[in-house]
């Protein structure tokens, strides 16, 4: 029947795509609107005056009409997230209300207020131009509206808004938070603050756009609101600096500082200013909410006088922001009772977003709403009630596809004759490919009928593709609403990729089909390889894979059904329509399915009967069912790999790299390559295996595996083998093993070379064991494990191969008091401690441990140290001795911290030793000399015995002369004797006398105790001298004081004289008296 092949066919070019798929319901032409209107069957009633079981749009319309007929006041609030179809339904209600009212002989006045560029100006203009307000009767009111619109076109509107907000801080009785109080007025006057708020996207600009509208645009976006938000006050540092430094008022500076880094304060300010916004808008427009209210009350009075009633359809009440309070007052005011009897009846249907209903709709008004509806799925946000199953999605899509296939004339004619849904023209009826097309891609009925003539083809989609795309919408970007179905799927795909059908390039690769859709993946990951194998090119394979995952059942299973072959649930026609080869597919589970009915349950998760024509799979065997069940639980890691293959990030890279490392470690015969298993353990691990395109950042030293199809197959194989090896069929298992084997054949050499190297980009210059032996000898030297007497190769071997537990603790050595070694010696020890020895601060490997592990000859799988390759170690020690401990500079100075751990610890330690060991030895030699000199200083040419005797005698003298010496000042240390001191002095001279590097190093290594004890003597003498000098000072002071007291020494003589004088005087008296008597 088909004379022309059904391939590369385009049938949706009769009308401009942007005109038909216009997501703004109120902007679309009436004929297109009606032709594409999908009935709303599920409208949720949150509140209604009576139970309404029929939730269809028709019932809602009937409710409005019936209430009008009953002369009942009606205030319908239609809530829904943006894009759920509120506008569409409101417009449909309006159109149908007008028709029904007219046909029913009614004379209601119907006004539809559109969202209209999301601006108050446009909204007011709509009201002025609606023709409801008679120019003569409503002259004053209209003049006010016109004046308001003129105000809103003023170029200095932003400043006016700011000024009026500033006035509002004084005029409006809104409670301001304490920190804001008194400061916000000056804040709003600050030049820099004003500039910031007037920037594009900022609060004042949003308010300006809302009030005045924006040329050639849609005004405020759906998620933009004419109100302040916390983020509006998130000022950058530069702005804060300007406010602070460039002459701003102190209040403005203080408030700006307060807001910095304090989101709660910013929110407080936003909340406060939002309370001022209505005042500012009223003042800016010179139109108050009360003016608007009076305008509509006047209208209702006038209509009452005319015997007519008012019906208002308002697409979005938020377009009245600032004046909305007045409008709401009108909407809730009934025409009954004493207060309302002068008004006509009012029926209103008002669209509100969830956010507006939650934040701006007063609670007392909510009580007075007669019908509260929601178009959200289950009454919640994020998804539309309209599109909850594949049928609804295909139904809506089919209507738009049909409209695209019809000419404008055909639609206008249909509208002219009554626009009855069942009479809507069907473009498919005249299409030569209809039968093949509908068979391959399916169709959707215009009405609840099996009438073939009403079937609208879904080409270039099918039901599965539409549902997969809709279900796959990335809700972090878009909501699952009619608007996103139309915009993100139908319009985007037809606009971006539609022409490529004609070029034979459709569908594009999975990720390119729709931007806002999370790409699906094949259910059987191994089938990607099969697709590649059966395709002529990778581009073609990508397209076939895309066809399979969107249009097909996400497999390329080969199935024969009633003599017709299907691959992935798609017939050859579907492949050929896009100019793709009909591949054989996966024949591993070939089944021939007999004469089974073509009808049945849809696979797409709905119990509703599907009218999609592709046949449903017949009942499968139990094995197949099991496999299908397994496959249906799509493995997220497999999906991840498939997305990664399509240039997405690999999220499960850690697990995959681990499996890859495990596989590599076990697969390669490392001994045959002469690679130590220690190195393998370190190098072949998850963190060193980086997969190109992995989501995590790679750091340190690693081997990168490039993003290739082969690697993708390897990773998929590893997932399967690791997660369900016991469940996969033998042939699939075999396929995976071949994949792994082939890949390893190509990559083994690269991996082995990587393991051998210290780091990926560094070729080793010396064997690791050499480095470790020499390094450990030097470490043993620093760690005082060597002695001058143990200098044979065998001695040194035993010293370095001593268990760490038996070796001296470096922490203890470095924390000795007094510390006997030179600064260089200690610095070197500290510098290498992390890698040299077991360290409480370092749980990682160390050179000592690494030497044991490396020299260990593994016995089977055991990693215990049981058999050391002593011969190799002895050889290396002998060579090192022969070179008189020459530490060659053979290694790079830098090595990545995350390079191979044995290499890291070895190279880092070796390099440090190479740079500093010789200097440390020299410094240590000087240290010995310094200590020797220190002792000489105290001895000062005397023998040690003389010194000790002098000390004893002086202490005895102190005791005899009551000069106290506290133990804190000095106490005799019985362990220090002149005999030992004599020996130490001799030993120090011996150490100093060494000239051969090895001898010196060994002597110095063993000199720890000698130096420590010598220092003890020095410290002992120091303390003694310090104490004696203190006493000497005290004595000097005492002597000076006593000598001063003797200045008055004549007193004695004076007293003697006084005695003598007095005696003589008395004697003279006696003599005189005796003479007198005689």
């Amino acid at each position: 029947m088909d004379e022309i092949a059904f391939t590369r066919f385009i049938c949706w070019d009769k009308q401009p795509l942007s005109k038909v798929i216009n997501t703004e319901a109120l902007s679309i032409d009436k004929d297109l609107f009606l032709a594409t209107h999908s009935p709303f069957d599920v409208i949720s009633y949150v509140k209604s005056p009576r139970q309404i079981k029929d939730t269809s749009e028709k019932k809602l319309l009937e409710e409005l009409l019936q209430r009008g007929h009953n002369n009942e006041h009606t205030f319908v609030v239609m809530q829904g997230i943006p894009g759920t179809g509120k506008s569409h339904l409101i417009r449909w209600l309006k159109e149908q209300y007008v028709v029904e009212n007219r046909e029913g002989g009614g004379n209601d006045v119907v006004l539809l207020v559109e969202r209209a560029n999301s601006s108050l100006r446009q909204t007011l203009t709509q009201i002025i131009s609606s023709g409801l307000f008679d120019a003569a009767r409503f002259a004053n009111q209209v003049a006010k509206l016109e004046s308001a619109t003129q105000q809103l076109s003023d170029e200095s509107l932003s400043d006016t808004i700011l000024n009026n907000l500033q006035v509002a801080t004084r005029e409006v009785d809104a409670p301001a938070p304490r920190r804001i109080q008194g400061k916000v007025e000056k804040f709003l006057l600050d030049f820099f603050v004003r500039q910031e708020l007037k920037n594009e996207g900022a609060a004042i600009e949003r308010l300006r756009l809302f009030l005045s509208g924006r040329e050639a645009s849609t005004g405020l976006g759906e998620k933009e609101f004419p109100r302040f938000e916390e983020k509006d006050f998130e000022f950058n540092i530069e702005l804060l600096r300007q406010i602070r430094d460039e002459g701003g008022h102190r209040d403005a500076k203080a408030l700006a500082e307060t807001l910095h880094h304090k989101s709660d304060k910013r929110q407080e300010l936003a909340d406060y200013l939002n309370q001022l916004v209505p005042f500012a808008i009223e003042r800016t427009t010179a139109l108050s909410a009360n003016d608007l209210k009076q305008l509509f009350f006047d209208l209702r009075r006038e209509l009452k006088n005319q015997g007519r009633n008012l019906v208002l359809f308002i697409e979005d009440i938020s377009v009245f922001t600032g004046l909305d309070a007045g409008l709401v007052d009108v909407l809730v005011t009934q025409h009954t009772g004493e207060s309302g009897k002068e008004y006509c009846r009012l029926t209103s249907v008002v669209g509100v977003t969830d956010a507006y209903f939650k934040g701006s709709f007063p609670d007392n008004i909510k009580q007075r709403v007669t019908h509260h509806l929601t178009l959200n799925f289950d009454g919640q946000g994020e998804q539309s009630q309209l599109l909850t199953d594949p049928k609804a999605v295909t139904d809506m899509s089919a209507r738009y596809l049909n409209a695209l296939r019809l000419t404008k004339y055909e639609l206008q004619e249909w509208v002219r004759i009554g626009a009855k849904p069942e009479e809507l023209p069907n473009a498919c009826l005249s299409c030569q490919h209809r039968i093949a097309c509908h068979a391959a891609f399916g169709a959707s009925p215009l009405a609840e009928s099996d009438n073939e003539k009403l079937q609208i083809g879904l080409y270039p989609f099918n039901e599965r593709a539409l549902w997969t795309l809709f279900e796959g919408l990335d809700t972090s970007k878009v909501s699952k609403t009619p608007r996103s179905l139309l915009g993100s799927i139908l319009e985007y795909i037809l606009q971006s990729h539609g022409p490529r059908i004609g070029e034979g390039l459709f569908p594009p690769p999975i990720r390119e089909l729709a931007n806002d859709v999370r790409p699906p993946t094949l259910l059987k990951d191994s089938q990607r390889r099969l697709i590649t194998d059966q395709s002529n090119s990778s581009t073609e394979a990508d397209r076939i894979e895309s066809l399979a995952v969107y249009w097909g059942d996400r497999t390329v299973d080969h199935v024969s059904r009633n003599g017709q072959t299907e691959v992935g649930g798609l017939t050859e026609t579907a492949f050929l329509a896009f100019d793709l080869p009909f591949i054989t597919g996966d024949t591993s589970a070939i089944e021939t399915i007999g004469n089974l009915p073509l009808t049945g349950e849809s696979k797409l998760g709905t119990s509703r009967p599907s009218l999609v024509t592709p046949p449903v799979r017949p009942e499968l065997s139990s094995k197949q069912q099991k496999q299908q069940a397994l496959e249906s639980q799509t493995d997220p890691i497999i999906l991840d790999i498939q997305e990664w293959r399509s240039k997405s990030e690999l999220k499960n890279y850690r697990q995959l790299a681990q499996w890859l490392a495990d596989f590599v470690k076990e697969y390669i015969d490392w001994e045959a390559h002469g690679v130590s298993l220690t190195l393998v353990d370190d190098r072949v691990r998850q963190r060193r295996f980086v997969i190109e395109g992995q989501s995590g950042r790679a750091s340190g030293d690693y081997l990168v595996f490039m993003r290739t199809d082969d690697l993708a197959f390897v990773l998929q194989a590893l997932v399967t083998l690791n997660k369900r090896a016991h469940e996969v069929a033998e042939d699939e298992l075999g396929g995976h093993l071949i994949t792994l084997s082939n890949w390893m054949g190509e990559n083994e050499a690269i991996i082995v070379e990587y393991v051998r190297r210290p780091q990926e980009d560094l070729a080793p210059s010396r064997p690791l064991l050499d480095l470790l032996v020499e390094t450990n000898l030097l470490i043993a030297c620093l760690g005082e494990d060597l002695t001058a007497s143990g200098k044979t190769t065998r001695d040194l071997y035993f010293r370095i191969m001593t268990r760490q537990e038996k070796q001296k603790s470096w922490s203890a050595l470095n924390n000795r008091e007094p510390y006997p070694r030179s600064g260089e010696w200690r610095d070197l020890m500290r510098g290498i401690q992390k890698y040299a020895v077991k360290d409480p601060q370092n749980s990682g490997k160390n050179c000592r441990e690494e030497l044991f592990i490396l020299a260990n000859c593994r016995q089977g799988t055991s990693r215990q140290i049981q058999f050391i390759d002593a011969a190799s170690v002895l050889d290396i020690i002998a060579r090192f001795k022969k070179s008189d401990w020459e530490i060659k500079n053979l290694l790079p100075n830098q090595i990545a911290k995350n390079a191979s751990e044995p290499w890291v610890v070895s190279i880092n330690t070796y390099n440090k030793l190479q740079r500093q060991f010789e200097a440390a030895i020299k410094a240590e030699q000087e240290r010995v000399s310094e200590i020797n000199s220190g002792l000489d200083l105290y001895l000062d040419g005397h023998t040690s015995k003389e010194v000790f005797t002098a000390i004893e005698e002086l202490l005895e003298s102190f005791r005899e002369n009551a000069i106290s010496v506290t133990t804190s000042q000095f106490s005799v240390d019985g362990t220090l004797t002149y005999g030992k001191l004599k020996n130490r002095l001799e030993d120090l001279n011996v150490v100093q006398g060494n000239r051969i590097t090895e001898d010196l190093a060994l002597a110095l290594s063993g000199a720890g105790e000698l130096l420590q004890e010598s220092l003890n003597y020095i410290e002992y003498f120091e303390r003694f001298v310090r104490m004696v000098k203190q006493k000497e000072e005290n004595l000097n002071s005492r002597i000076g004081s006593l000598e001063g007291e003797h200045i008055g020494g004549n007193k004695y003589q004076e007293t003697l004289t006084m005695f003598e004088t007095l005696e003589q005087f008395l004697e003279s008296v006696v003599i005189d008296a005796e003479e007198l008597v005689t």
Partner: protein
Amino acid sequence: MIVDLTENVRIQIARRNELERIRDNQQIIADTAQALSSVRDALVPYITSLNLVRSCLTEEQIEEGVKKIETINTRLKRSHEKFAAQERPVRELNSLKGLVEELQDFLKQAWASYAYTKTQLQFELFNLVGQLPEVAEHMATIAPIKRNLETAPNKLPRTASDLEKFESELEALQDSLGNIEGLNSEITQFLYKVQNKTATVADLTDDVLPWCRENSEREAAFLITLGRSR
């Protein structure tokens, strides 16, 4: 270093000990000087007084005073010797103060005895003639002298002028009372009796009566009363 250091310190210890010993002696000297000064200051004024009034004392009194001074001097010499021997004589010197006080008391008593004896006769005469008109008219001159002399026994002369003053005042009082005309023993006897209110007409002897009538003022000075004679 250590050996030299210990040697130096030991020398310093010895030096310190010597100076401390000297410093301790200084204290003994100071204390001794102070005690000795105290003794001297207490003793010397009385020795001076003794020299002044030596002529007023009896031989026994002089011997007694000398004896006391000798005792004091002996003890003083003993302290002197102790001091010279670098012992502490302070206690001995303090005990000398008792001896000095004894000497003081002795001298005060000796002088009081002397002065009292000297003045008492004149005071009795004054009492007899004090009412007589010719004495009464000089009372302004006599009364202060009498008052001074009444306290003289309690004031051991410290200086020569103290002693001269005593003697001159005593002489002045004698002169004032001794110039009364015709005052003989019979009249004096009569005046005693008048004073004791035992005089009778019988006592108005020929010597007495004319003396009484010698001038009209003296005559009016006697009052005759009735009473029993003894």
